[in-house]
C-alpha cells in the first residue's frame, strides 16, 4: 500500500512526525509499520505534549521502589512488603460505550497491577459526568452514569477486588466528555516484584490469555483526538471485557511467577501487542521477534496491521527462561488458559514481526518506545471563563441553603453508586466508601493502607495551579483524618486539547502546582496517566487533575466520620479559616445557590495545612477522636451535617465565632480544617497548640438535632433526619429523571 498524505493524516500523525519515521527507518514504512508508529507515538502512549512538564514532578523518596515508567509505581510499606498502585483514565471509551468502556478501564488498571506480581486488593474511581437534569443532555447523562457504574461493578465484582471508594461530581463541561479514572492498588512481597523487561537472548516470548480479535483497533489514537459528531461511530473501537478471564489470568500469572521461570511480563493494554513487544524490548535493551501465525486469533483473515493494533482485553506477554517453558505452560493449562510461544528475545534491538515467515515490520524497539516526538507546546495564559468579580449574592436562609446543598448531586450521598460495588470482598476493608479515606488492611503485616482520590475541576478552572495544590492538600487531609500518614501519589491529568495554548497553559500550571504540593507534603508521584483532547465539538472540560494518594497506618479500627455519642466536645482543628467574596466563587454554595462561578479558589497555606494534618494524625492515633471528618465541599455546615448522618443519628449544637458573613462562615471551603468529636478536649487542645494550629471548641454533639448559632441567633435548627433524607436519596431521585 502506498503511504499518502491522507493516510498519514488518518493515522493522526503530522507530516513532520512522518518524516521522522522515514529518517529513523531509513526508508518508507510499510502500512503495518505506519500503524505501529501511529499508536506508539499517539498522545495516549507517548505523552508527547506532557512529557517535558511531567519531569517537574517529584518522583523519589526513601519509600519509592519504582517510580514512573513501569506498569505501576511501587512503594515499600515495611516488613518486607510493598504495594503497587496507579490511576488511569478510560474517558473516551466510556463516553462511546459507557458499560464496556468503564469495565475495560477497570480491567486495564488491574492488569497493570498484577503484571508486576502484586495481588490487587482495592479499586477506587473518580468520575465526572454532565448534569443529570440538563435540559438537552440530561437523559443521555443519566444513561452514561448508569452504564459506567454498572460496568465498574460488573468487572470489579466478578474479578473479586473490592471497590472501596472514590468521588463523583457533575458539571456541564463533562456533558460531552465524561471522565472515568480508575485507581487500583495491589500488595506483594518486596522480593516478588516483576518488571516488564525482555532479557536473555534466545528466551521464548509467550502469549497468554484471550484470543486476539478486531476490537479496540486504534483505541489509543481515538483517545488522542477530540470528539466530533462522528465519534459515536467509533463504538467498534471500544473493547469488550471478560472479568472471568481476567480473574483466571491473575491467578495463573501469580502462580506462574512463583515457578521462577518467568523473566519478564507485560500486559497488552493500549496499543496491544505492539506496545508490549516494543516496550519490553526497549526496557530490556533487547529486541523481540514474533511470528503472527502463532498468535491466537478470534477470527480468520486478520491482517498483520489488525493483529498488531488490536486492543482485545485480558492478554499478557511473558518472557520465559529457555528450557523451562513447560513449567509455565503447566500452570496456564491448570487454569484453562491458552499459552503459546510466539517469538524469541533477540540481541539486535529490533522489534521484528513476521507473517508466514515474511517480515512485515522491523523497527528499532528503543526508538519506537522512547524516541517519540516531544513537544514544547506554546502555553500562554490559562483559559478562564469565569469573571473575577462576585455577583450580588442572593438572600437565602442558611437552613434552606444547607438542605439544597446536601441534596445537590456533588454533595449528596453516593450510596446509590457504591452499593453496586462489592466493597467487602477479601475481608480487608476496615473502612469502605462514604468516609474521608478508604482503609484496607494488609493481613500479612500489621499495616493498613489508607487511600483517597481528589480532584476539583471547578477550582482548577479558576486557577489550575492553586486548584492542583488544593487537590493534593485535600487528599492528604482525607488520609490524615483517618490517622494515616500520606506517603506517595499517583495522578491522572484530564485536560482539553494541548494544541491550544490556553489549554496547554492549564496543563503546565496544574503540573507545576501539583509538583510543588507533592514535594511539600512528601508524596512523590510514582506514576499515572495523562488524558488530553477531552473536548467535544470544541468545548473543553475543566482542567481536571485527579490525585490518588496512599497513606500508611497501624492496623486498627479506623475512626469514622459520624458522631457516636451526644455530649462530646466538637473541635474544629485548624480553626474557622477565612474567606472573602473572591474566594467564595468556587464553592458548592456558589455553584448550587448562586448558580455561578467567579473569583478564585480558596486560599491555601501549605505550611499551616501540614501542621493541621500532623496534629489531626496525632489526635486520631492517640485515640482521642470519636469521629473525624475533613471540611471540604459545602464547608463547615455540610461537614457538620455529614457527621450527623451516622447510624446513631447524633447531631450537634454549634456556635460560630462571628466576624464573617453567615454564608461565608457556614459554607466557605477554606482548607486546613478537620472536625473532631472528643471526650478529652483539653488533650486535643494541647496537641493542636504544640503544632501551632487553632483548635476552637465550637460546640457539642447533641441527640438527633443540628443547631448552628451565631451570637445567640439560630442560623440552622432542625432535626437531623429531615436533612438526611434529602442527602441520602438525591442521587437516586435525580437518576430517575
Amino acid at each position, binding site marked *: 500500500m502506498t503511504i499518502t498524505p491522507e493516510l498519514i493524516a488518518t493515522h493522526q500523525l503530522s507530516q513532520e512526525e512522518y518524516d521522522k519515521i522515514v529518517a529513523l527507518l531509513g526508508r518508507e514504512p510499510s502500512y503495518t509499520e505506519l500503524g505501529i508508529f501511529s499508536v506508539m507515538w499517539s498522545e495516549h502512549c507517548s505523552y508527547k505534549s506532557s512529557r517535558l512538564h511531567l519531569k517537574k514532578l517529584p518522583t523519589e523518596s526513601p519509600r519509592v521502589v519504582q517510580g514512573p515508567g513501569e506498569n505501576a509505581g511501587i512503594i515499600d510499606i515495611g516488613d518486607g512488603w510493598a504495594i503497587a498502585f496507579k490511576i488511569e483514565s478510560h474517558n473516551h471509551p466510556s463516553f462511546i460505550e459507557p458499560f464496556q468502556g468503564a469495565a475495560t478501564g477497570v480491567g486495564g488498571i488491574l492488569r497493570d497491577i498484577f503484571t508486576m506480581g502484586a495481588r490487587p486488593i482495592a479499586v477506587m474511581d473518580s468520575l465526572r459526568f454532565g448534569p443529570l437534569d440538563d435540559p438537552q443532555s440530561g437523559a443521555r447523562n443519566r444513561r452514561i452514569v448508569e452504564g459506567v457504574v454498572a460496568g465498574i461493578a460488573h468487572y470489579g465484582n466478578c474479578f*473479586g477486588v473490592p471497590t472501596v471508594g472514590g468521588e463523583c461530581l457533575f458539571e456541564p463541561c463533562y456533558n460531552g466528555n465524561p471522565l472515568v479514572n480508575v485507581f487500583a492498588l495491589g500488595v506483594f512481597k518486596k522480593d516478588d516484584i516483576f518488571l516488564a523487561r525482555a532479557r536473555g537472548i534466545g528466551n521464548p516470548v509467550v502469549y497468554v490469555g484471550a484470543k486476539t480479535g478486531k476490537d479496540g483497533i486504534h483505541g489509543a489514537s481515538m483517545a488522542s483526538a477530540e470528539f466530533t459528531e462522528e465519534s459515536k461511530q467509533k463504538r467498534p473501537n471500544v473493547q469488550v471485557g471478560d472479568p472471568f478471564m481476567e*480473574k*483466571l489470568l491473575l491467578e495463573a500469572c501469580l502462580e506462574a511467577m512463583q515457578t521462577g521461570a518467568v523473566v519478564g511480563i507485560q500486559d497488552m493494554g493500549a496499543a496491544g501487542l505492539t506496545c508490549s513487544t516494543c516496550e519490553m524490548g526497549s526496557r530490556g535493551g533487547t529486541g523481540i521477534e514474533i511470528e503472527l501465525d502463532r498468535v491466537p486469533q478470534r477470527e480468520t483473515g486478520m491482517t498483520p496491521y489488525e493483529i498488531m493494533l488490536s486492543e482485545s482485553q485480558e492478554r499478557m506477554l511473558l518472557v520465559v527462561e529457555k528450557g523451562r517453558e513447560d513449567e509455565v505452560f503447566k500452570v496456564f493449562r491448570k*487454569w484453562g488458559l491458552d499459552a503459546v510461544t510466539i517469538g524469541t528475545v533477540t540481541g539486535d534491538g529490533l522489534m521484528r514481526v513476521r507473517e508466514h515467515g515474511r517480515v512485515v515490520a522491523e523497527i528499532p524497539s528503543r526508538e519506537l518506545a522512547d524516541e517519540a516526538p516531544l513537544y514544547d507546546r506554546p502555553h500562554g495564559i490559562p483559559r478562564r471563563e469565569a469573571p473575577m468579580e462576585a455577583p450580588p449574592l442572593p438572600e437565602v436562609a442558611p437552613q434552606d441553603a444547607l438542605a439544597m446543598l446536601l441534596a445537590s448531586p456533588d454533595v449528596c450521598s453516593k450510596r446509590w453508586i457504591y452499593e453496586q460495588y*462489592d466493597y467487602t470482598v477479601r*475481608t480487608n476493608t476496615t473502612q469502605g466508601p462514604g468516609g474521608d479515606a478508604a482503609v484496607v*488492611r494488609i493481613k500479612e503485616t500489621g499495616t493498613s493502607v489508607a487511600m483517597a482520590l481528589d480532584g476539583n475541576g471547578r477550582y482548577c478552572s479558576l486557577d489550575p495551579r492553586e486548584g492542583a495544590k488544593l487537590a493534593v492538600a485535600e487528599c492528604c487531609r482525607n488520609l490524615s483524618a483517618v490517622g494515616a500518614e500520606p506517603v506517595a501519589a499517583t495522578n491522572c491529568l484530564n485536560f482539553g486539547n494541548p494544541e491550544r495554548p490556553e489549554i496547554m497553559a492549564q496543563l503546565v500550571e496544574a503540573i507545576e502546582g501539583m509538583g510543588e504540593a507533592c514535594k511539600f507534603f512528601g508524596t512523590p508521584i510514582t506514576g499515572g496517566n495523562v488524558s488530553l483532547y477531552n473536548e467535544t465539538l470544541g468545548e473543553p472540560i475543566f482542567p481536571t487533575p485527579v490525585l490518588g494518594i496512599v497513606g500508611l497506618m497501624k492496623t486498627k479500627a479506623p475512626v469514622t466520620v459520624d458522631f457516636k455519642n451526644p455530649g462530646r466536645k466538637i473541635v474544629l482543628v485548624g480553626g474557622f479559616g477565612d474567606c472573602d467574596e473572591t474566594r467564595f466563587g468556587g464553592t458548592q454554595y456558589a455553584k448550587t445557590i448562586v448558580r455561578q462561578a467567579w473569583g478564585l479558589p480558596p486560599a491555601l497555606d501549605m505550611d499551616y495545612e501540614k501542621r493541621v494534618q500532623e496534629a489531626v494524625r496525632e489526635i486520631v492515633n492517640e485515640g482521642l477522636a470519636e469521629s473525624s471528618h475533613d471540611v471540604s465541599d459545602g464547608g463547615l455546615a455540610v461537614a457538620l451535617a455529614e457527621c450527623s448522618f451516622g447510624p446513631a443519628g447524633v447531631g450537634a449544637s454549634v456556635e460560630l465565632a462571628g466576624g464573617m458573613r453567615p454564608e461565608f462562615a457556614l459554607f466557605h471551603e477554606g482548607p486546613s480544617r478537620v472536625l473532631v468529636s472528643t471526650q478529652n478536649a483539653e488533650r486535643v487542645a494541647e496537641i493542636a497548640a504544640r503544632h501551632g494550629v487553632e483548635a476552637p471548641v465550637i460546640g457539642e454533639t447533641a441527640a438527633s438535632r443540628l443547631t448552628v448559632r451565631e451570637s445567640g441567633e439560630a442560623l440552622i435548627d432542625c432535626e437531623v433526619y429531615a436533612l438526611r433524607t434529602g442527602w441520602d436519596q438525591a442521587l437516586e431521585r435525580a437518576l430517575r429523571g
Partner: protein
Amino acid sequence: MKFGVVVFPGSNCDHDAFYAVSQNLGQKAEFLWHDSARIGDVDAVILPGGFSYGDYLRCGAIAKFSPVMAAVKEFAAAGGLVLGICNGFQILVESGLLPGALIRNRGLKFICRPVKLRVETADSPFTSAACKGQTLTVPIAHGEGCYIADERTLDQLEAEDRVAFRYVENPNGSLRDIAGILNEGRNVLGMMPHPERAADPLMGSTDGLRVFESMLQAFAVETPARL
C-alpha cells in the same frame, strides 16, 4: 476440625472463607480444586462466593457439572456438613441439594451492604450457637440473590423449620424474606449473606462467626475424640 473450601475457576471468596475458619475460628482448612473428584478427609465443605466459571450462563449452572460437586453430593448424602455462601448457595440450588432458585435482585442491581438477619431456628448444625429470634449483622454482596420457590415448597420449608435466616429488611425481593435455608437432613445450608465477612472485629461485626462456631459444636458432639 478440618474445613474444605472448594475453589472453582472464578471463586473469589475462597480465601476469605479459608481465613475465617483458619484464623478467626482457629481450625484446619484446605482448598479443594474443582477438578478433583475426591474431597479427602475434610469434616465440612464450604462452597464459597464468587462467579464460578464466570456465571455468564446462570449462576452456578456450570459449577454443578464439575467433578468436585459429585463428591460434595456424596458427602452431603452421607450426612457431611455443607455450607454454601452466596455463589455457593446458587450452586447448591442448581445442583438440587436445596430447593428453589435465586434470581436477579428486585431492583436489578448488585447490592453490597451490611444487613440484619433474624435467626429463624437454632435447631441446626449451622445455627446452634445462636438463639432463635436473635439478630445478626452480616454483609450481603450479590446481584442475583432473590430467593424464589413455589408456595408449596415455601410452606414446606417453614413447616419443617428449614428457614435458617430471614432478612429483617428485605433487600432483594426474596420471597418470605428468606436469606438462608436448610435441606431436609439439616446438614446442608445455603445463604446469600457472607458470614465469613463478619468474622473479624476489624470488619465491624463478628456475628458471622456464629455459623462457623455452630459447625464446630456440631462436629464436637459428633466426634469428640477427633477434635
